[in-house]
Each structure stands twice: as C-alpha cells, then as structure tokens.
C-alpha cells in the first residue's frame, strides 16, 4: 500500500496539495512516483506564472514515461523546488517532503472536488 498522509488534499491526476494560509505546496503522490519508476527529470514552470485549476504546470520524466503535471489549485507560482534540478530522485525517495515541486500563492479558494486521503485511496491502487 502506498503512503497517503491524512493532512493533504489530492487530485485524481495524482498531485497532492498542502495548504498553509494562502500558499499551497504541490507535489506528486507516493503512488504516482511508484507507478512512474525512477524519476530522471522534472520540468517546472517559471516563478510568477499564473495557473488555473487543471493547467499543465510541468512534466515529470521517468525511465518509463513522461507525464504532465496538472495544477490542482488556481494561483501564481511563488517558488519552485531548486533541488529537483540535480536531484530528481527526491520525488521517489521523499514525495511528500523534499520532493515537493512548486509553491503557489492562491488566488481562489481550494476546489471542493479535491479528494481527502480516504477518497484518494480509492483512486490510487
């Protein structure tokens, strides 16, 4: 069973969101990284880019495939994880911690369609 922390929100497309005030931190789930296999490259947006819910904010490349990353929330990119440039394996080893991808300054409330841990558990298997 993959790890699904109960304090996060999840998108069906396998991104997680941690909301702190009006800033959301986004990454991909433990299930997603295990399906992808070893991640070799993460393509992230420029700081300042405006994202709507469902917009592609980047892509993640593994030895198996390349997958688009979809923004679960609306806002402006505040920060990207600089460590992923040279250490993309952090997405595999610590998907909810050091493997985070972007921080977004929210311009709208978090969509109610996002899943809680239990709801995501039903999707991720």
């Amino acid at each position, binding site marked *: 069973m993959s790890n699904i922390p109960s304090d996060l929100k999840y998108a069906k497309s396998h991104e997680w969101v941690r909301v702190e005030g009006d800033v959301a931190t986004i990454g991909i789930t433990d299930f997603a990284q295990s399906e992808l296999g*070893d991640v*070799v*490259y993460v393509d992230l947006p420029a700081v300042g880019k405006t994202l709507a819910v469902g917009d592609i904010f980047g892509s993640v490349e593994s*030895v*198996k*495939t*390349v997958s688009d990353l979809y923004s679960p929330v609306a806002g402006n990119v505040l920060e990207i994880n600089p460590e992923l440039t040279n250490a*993309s*394996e952090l997405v595999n080893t610590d998907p909810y911690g050091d493997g985070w991808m972007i921080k977004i300054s929210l311009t709208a409330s978090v969509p109610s369609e996002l899943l809680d841990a239990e709801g995501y558990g039903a999707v991720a298997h």
Partner: protein
Amino acid sequence: MSRMQKMPEPELIFDRSRPGRIGCNVPRCDTPEVDVASAVGAVRDDLHLPEVSELDLLRHFTNLSHINYGIETGFYPLGSCTMKYNPKINEQTARLAGFANLHPMQPVATIPGALEILYGVQSMLIEITGFSTITLQPVAGAHGEMTCLMLIKAYHESRGEGNRTVVLVPDSAHGTNPASAARCGYSVKSIPTDAAGNTDLAALATALEEVGPNVAALMLTNPSTLGLFEPNIERICKMLHDAGGQVFCDGANMNAMVGTTRPGDHGFDCMHLNLHKTFSTPHGGGGPGCGAIGLQSHLEPFLPAPVIRMSEGKIIADEDRPQTIGRVAGFYGQFLMEVRAYTYLRAFGKEHMADISRYSVLNANYVRERLKDVLPPAHDRPCMHECILTAEKYKKEHGVRALDISKRLIDYGFHPPTNYFPLIVPECLMIEPTETETKETLDEFCDAMISICREAVEEPDLLHDAPSTRITGRLDETLAVKNLDVRWWPNQ
C-alpha cells in the same frame, strides 16, 4: 551458443590496440600530394584511435555481431514496430549499379528509370490506401505526420480559416502525434478512450463543441495502439468534417489493413505510411525511415514540390506548384528505400497483398489466445496485428512487473515485446508477431511466456534478477539517463 549459458563480456577494440600497428593498405595517391596540416589547419594528435591488424579488426566486429540480436537471429515481437523480415531480394535490387550509383545532383532528364520506380511505388500505394495522391518525400514516420499537418494547415488557411488551431489526439496515440501537432504550432487536446478500447464518441462530441470553429484536425491511429480496429471510424470522420476539421490517419498500424481495407475509403483526408514498417524497408539502426503520405484531392495543391506525376505520357518531377508548402526534404525521399519497397510490392504482387494483413492478424490472435490464461488481454475482443496484454495481477500478487517479464524473456533467447505502451493499459505488454513468423516460432515464444509466468509465481526473483545469461545483467536505466557517458578514454 545455448540459450541459458552466460556469455563472456567482449573486450574493446582499444584493448587490442598497439602503437604503430596498421590494419589497412591505403592505395597509392593518384592526385598531387598535399600536406594535410596545410590543407585543413591544425591536425589533432590526441584522438586515441585504435591501432589494430586487419585480422584483429575482423574478429572484433565479427564477434560483436554474434552477440547482436536482430530479426535474422530470432523472434522480435516489438509491438507497434512491425519488425517483419525484409526479404533479401530487396537488397539485391537496391544494389543494382543503375540505382546505387545515381548521383543525387544528376539532372532529372538523365534518370527516367528512377522516376519510373518512384511513380510505380506511388501508384501501388495509391491502390493500397485508396487515396488520390501519394508523395514519397518525407523521410521518417513523424516527418510524414508533420507534413500532413502542414498540408491541413495550408488547406485551412487557403479557405480563410487560419483560426483553426486545435488538434485532437486520442490518449492512446503514439507520442509523435501531439509532438507533430505542437511542432506545427497547433495546441493539442486529448480525447479519452472508452472502456471497450474505442474513441470515446461522447467525449469527442463534447471536445468538438468546446473547440467549436477552432478545430483543425483529429489525428487517429487505426487500428489503434490498443491493437483494435476503430468500429466508428466513418462516424468519427463525419463528426470532424461536420465541424470543419480534417482527419489524419496515423498509418503505423497499416500492416493490419494492407490488401484488406483502405483508409482512403474510411473518410480520412490524409495519412502517413511507414515504408520501413509495412513495406519492408530496413528498420533497425535508425532507418533511414520512409514516411510516405497519402491524401485526398482537396489537399493536392499544397503538396511539397517536386511532385512526381504523369504528364502527356511521361513521368515528370513537377516543380511548378504555386500553392506548395515547399520542400520538406533536401531530395525526394530515400531513393534506395523506395527501390526496396518497390521490389517488395512487386514480389508479393496484388493477388497476395492481403496475405500480409491476414497472416499478421491471425498470428497476433494466435498469440493472444495461447497466452490469455496467463496474461489477460486488455480488451475482450479479437485484436488486429498486435495484442495488448496486462501483467497487472503479477505486480499486485507477486511484485513482478511487465518489465521483469520482458527482461526474463531475454534469458529465453527472445527479444522482449514493447512495455508500458499504450500508457492507458497498466503493466502493459504489446506483442506484434508480424506475418513472417511460423506457427512453430510463435509456439516457442508462447511456451517461454507461459513458463515465465509460472516462474513469476513460484520464483519471482528469477525475474527480478533477469537477464542473468547475457553479457550484462539488468542495466541501471536511471544512471544511464542521468549520467550518460559513452566515451572511451585510456586509463591515465
């Protein structure tokens, strides 16, 4: 070499190198001698080229060729690649001096025989595909896709509809489809596949409504990458045409249709063909590819020049094309590949053309049936020229992935099938046997797969550790991608 025996690791040619040893005699110079340094500037002396005798050189590469795996050494069921056997007669004709010694810059008036070959290939492909025109100019499959989209773009623009900027691509498509669309400046919208493995018609209708007057085209692979014929193809083409869009057929899977049914009759506006898959021109080592395209008459004015066509009883290379999109290649296709395709088509003959699709579909369904109890097909209906199986239960129950099954297959002496494509099937194995394999070979392969699936349950580590009988074990693909280093440098 027996299949389960560990192979010795070959040495590098550099290991045999000794300073001053020479493996060839250079003929006496028949032009005035020039000092190399004065002609080209500084000459590097740090290149570390190997210095070996002719015999050492010969042995080195002969031994390497023994560990190479190709269609001439064994079964090669790489799905979506059509690794059929290319008959040797193709090579004989391509080596005829009259073809092989043509110069690409020769005046067109001096090559009527070459034009005849090109026109002949075009005419036969027109008959096979049902389109009104074929051009052989694109030099790869994705190049053919892109050329088709360029024609579609020119067509829309000629009608004052340059606002059509969205291309629809099903989620089962080859990655080259969205890439070709993006390269032509289109934005791409993905269309889902329904539970039966067909294009989701409701989702297509919704997408067409959303995109409205901006739809440029749909890129559809038929049979799809799920190895399934799209039963709603005529309806799909009509939906696109009613919305003012065009329909492109990705011809990667043409092997399932040759001589049996024609995309030009299904409603498609254009398609690409991979001569290097379907029509038996060389495929390994990167090609060179051949991405011929077929199109309906409304796209003809925009064809890349020159157009090889009949004019007053003579075959001409027509450069007078006012609405052309321009050249898409320096020359007209890969000429010697067209000679091979011509040979293949003529050797088969019209009366046997349908055998290609019949036997390739029969072989794929035979493999599907023999393996269905150990590796369930992704969809419950007969497949076309390739079958898509899922190893999901082995992953869930025994921690064995499709990749592990493929790696173990190497120990059994077979090239693995395609893994993890199409992306929408979990733990996917995509097997395309092609029409050129005998029942005996298919049985050997199926026996190996059944044996491996038994091992997956009883001794899963045999699969995790595979391959264990080749010169190298499981390669670290992550390291290879992240820290690629293929240079050789002497120990210092």
